[in-house]
């Protein structure tokens, strides 16, 4: 899971349908399909690795409205 000090993608488990578009799109392998099942019966994606560069590819590839939000670490001094 990401922290406020690092870039991360926040995946809304209630909206994710587990299509893995974000898993395929992420150039750094930060996202995986978890073992938990959401209320719709899908195994939803989860942010797993702290190598996120906040490129947004997971967001751009996601077919579900509001399922992914990308958080970028603020620049120092910003």
């Amino acid at each position, binding site marked *: 899971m990401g922290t406020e000090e690092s870039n991360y993608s926040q995946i809304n488990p209630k909206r994710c349908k587990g*299509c893995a*578009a974000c898993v*395929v799109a992420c150039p750094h392998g930060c996202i995986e399909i978890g073992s938990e099942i959401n209320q719709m019966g899908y195994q939803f994606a989860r942010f797993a690795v702290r190598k996120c560069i906040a490129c*947004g*590819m997971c*967001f751009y*590839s*996601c*077919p579900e409205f509001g399922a992914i*939000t990308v958080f970028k670490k603020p620049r120092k001094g910003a």
Partner: protein
Amino acid sequence: MKLVYKEVPVEFLAALPEGIKYVQKQGKDFLVIEQLYCKDGHSLMADHVRMHGEPSIFLDAKIGSLRGRIFLDAFWGGHDKLYSFIPREADMHSITEAYCPHCGISLMTERLCTYEGCGCALAILLNLPGGVNRILVCAKHGCPDHDLVVQRIPEEISRRVKKINYFGEFHDDMFKGI
């Protein structure tokens, strides 16, 4: 692409093309597509599916062997979308073939995507009113590249409009309460 808010160029607002409206949300400027057509003149706006309070853009789409309907955020650079089907993992690097949901005509056109690492040779062509001004969206699934081709607007201004993209933390803040 930087995760920073991109101001809408004043020069563009002064010559705002028909079919695009300017709105202010929480003190920030946004461009919102409000009229869009296929090449046969059918409207591609879906009043019944709204994103951030505005009608979305709807298309029929084929990704790999799957077909369905997709709804796109009408906020320029918003990139939110909703699919009526779940793309398969095997098709993630496929081209999205788009069709008019009314007449079924193909919306595809040739255009080389210059977005880093993409290089897709096809785009989805959407017409603004009059059929002269156009929006081109890269057909590669997951590529954020898009172009607004507007007559009478200098290329430098078009380039700045093209760079307007929102997502991430700021995206969330930007649309909060909309």
